[in-house]
């Protein structure tokens, strides 16, 4: 059992939960994730470790409520607990040792890119974060990233920072030169666009893939992705790969496998047939 010790709403549909998981808090590295199962009957879902406090024995999970499992998780209150958390899983991020890194986060991907930016800055790499959201209220992790390095905020509607997509802001940085590496985390299409953008500049681009997962230990093969024409298991070989070699089309296709089931589950949830009510104490 993992108790929720703090909870914060970061944007209209993104919530941070600080959860007790002492061993994971102690050893986790940037880029790693956990598999979470809220309780009996719940799905096993992968979530990135956005931050940790080794002394307090807690990890931070930043969750975008998109479907049944994530909605039920963000409905938990401080004092509630999560039944199963396994990790830390996946390989830690491959960090460059010096130079200038651009960390691009789209939506909840900003929370995933945060630990990478944090780890880079700790070893002296100059970090510029390019983060985006639909509008001002959707931008997350801005203060934390400002503590680490430069930040460019982009909003689709221009309500905050520059108007436009993170790709445009990244392109300006590439044009200005001196970018040694790009780390990009966000929706599949954003990562694909960024990989295409950096390719002609010859700037290495690391992306964090988010295929459907079940066990997270390399046992089921459901998370297979195609990189450089070869099949890899994202849960054990990744989740980060060289964006210039990833087959994003395949990733996007496989991601829609359970769309009908998900819509059905979300509908049941909206109709009140959801465990949210049960999982809250109050």
């Amino acid at each position, binding site marked *: 059992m993992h108790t929720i010790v703090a909870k914060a709403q970061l944007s209209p549909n993104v919530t941070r939960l600080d959860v007790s998981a002492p061993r994971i808090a102690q050893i986790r590295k940037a880029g790693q994730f956990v598999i979470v199962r809220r309780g009996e009957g719940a799905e096993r879902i992968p979530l990135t470790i956005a931050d940790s406090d080794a002394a307090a024995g807690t990890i931070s999970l930043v969750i975008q409520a998109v479907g049944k499992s994530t909605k039920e998780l963000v409905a938990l209150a401080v004092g509630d607990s999560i039944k199963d958390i396994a990790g830390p899983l996946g390989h830690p991020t491959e960090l460059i040792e010096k130079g200038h890194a651009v960390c691009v986060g789209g939506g909840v991907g900003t929370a995933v890119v945060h630990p990478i930016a944090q780890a880079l800055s700790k070893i002296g790499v100059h970090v510029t974060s390019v983060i985006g959201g639909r509008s001002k209220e959707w931008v997350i992790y801005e203060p934390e990233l400002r503590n680490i390095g430069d930040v460019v905020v982009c909003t689709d509607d221009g309500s905050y920072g520059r108007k436009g997509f993170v790709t445009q802001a990244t392109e300006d940085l590439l044009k200005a030169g001196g970018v040694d590496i790009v780390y990009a985390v966000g929706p599949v299409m954003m990562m694909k666009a960024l990989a295409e953008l950096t390719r002609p500049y010859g700037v290495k681009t690391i992306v964090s893939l988010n295929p459907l997962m079940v*066990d997270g*230990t390399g046992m089921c093969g459901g998370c297979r992705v195609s990189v450089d024409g070869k099949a890899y298991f994202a849960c054990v070989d990744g989740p980060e790969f060289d964006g210039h070699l990833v087959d994003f089309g395949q990733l996007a296709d496989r991601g829609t496998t359970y769309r009908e089931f998900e819509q059905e589950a979300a509908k049941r949830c909206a109709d009140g047939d959801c465990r949210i009510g049960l999982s809250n104490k109050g």
Partner: protein
Amino acid sequence: MSTSNLTPKQRMQIARQEMPAQDPAVRRNNFGEVNLGMEAELAKLEAERCLQCRDPKCMKGCPVNVNIPRFLDLLTAGDMAGAANSLLSDNALPAVTGRVCPQETQCECECVRANRGSPVGIGYLERFVADWARSNQDAITLVNAAPKGKKVAVVGSGPAGLTAAGQLARRGYDVTVFEALHRAGGVLVYGIPEFRLPKKIVDQEVERLVQAGVKIECNVVVGRTYTVPELREQFDAIFIANGAGLPMFMNIPGEHYKGSYTANEYLTRVNLMAAYDPDSDTPIIKPRRVAVVGGGNVAMDAARTAQRMGAERVSIVYRRTKAEMPARAEEVHHAEEEGVAFDLLCAPVEIVANEKKWVTGLKCVRMELGAPDASGRRSPVAIPGSEFIIECDVVVSALGTRANPLLTQTCPDMKLDKRGNIVVDEKLMTSIPGVFAGGDIVRGAATVILAMGDGKRAAAAIDDYLMAKA
């Protein structure tokens, strides 16, 4: 020495009793257990068929040397507690092995009665006695030795790990089992389906170990949460039994399409995550037509599961003939009874899909058996130009599994063979002193009972090792 009044001649006259089973037409629509178990009278009658050979061949056929004549004799005499204690002292998970062992190639194939008629139904009787023991826990008198003050870690809670843990606890060790998944049991809970091995039975067997003092920590992925060298600092010895969980692919075009599953994923979704239960949050595709590639137990389980998930046509696609199938005979028989079709002498060449990337069929080529190879097996050869398509919306590939490198990658000092399996000596010790290994991670995908045999031998070897050091 026999306690029965029947003469051998009278015993010879008793015919083999049949295992009562659910009607195939009914069971193909439910996940309830197929074999229903014998009533006491029937079981006693079947046990009477044992001739109590002075030199029991059946025991030699059993990888853990269960004293079969002894427990059958106690059963015939009506001493259920005696039979149960006898069986449990030889075999830690008899309710499991009684259901999933390939008896026809082990104990029952050595039974002298097999020469003239049918062998004694040893598997059915093992199950009978084990089920009695499950509901009569108080009658089990096996006790732990005095605490030895030493700690042993077991990695993996499949049959090898559970057996070792039970045996070590009985020998007085402080045992902790580390399991990557959220539930203990290994393949017994994520692979083998409910209708063949009810999960309640595995849970009860695990609970019995916990009662005997074994600690089980789930959600610990060794190689990530702790490495083997880290565990080595905290424990006096380690037994690694992490199985052979890495699925193999056909390496044909189209394996990434939606509707193409490995058997591990398909079975895990249905078994461990209970996707057959409408209340489960874990999704699964509910196909109309399914093609399952492979001829082993895993293929049979996937096919029969798909049948129960409501598919109209399920077929086993296998490149040889039924005679070469490695699955347990009873599983092939049950699959046939339930209406699973067999597309034999067919080899898949491509998975085809529609424009939305959903699987629509499996393209195969017909095969014929060629000349026998070095091992005497006739190997299949493709017939040129015989390609055809099996229409289906789901393809499940059950081609076997290999060693998962997750753990061994973080333990560079451990010697592995070419296929990534852990190399052990005759005492099951790896190249790292105090670290032992057994089950599928050493043998490659094998059987429940061989894994259990390794667990038993490793426990004895660990005991010897730690006592010699003490």
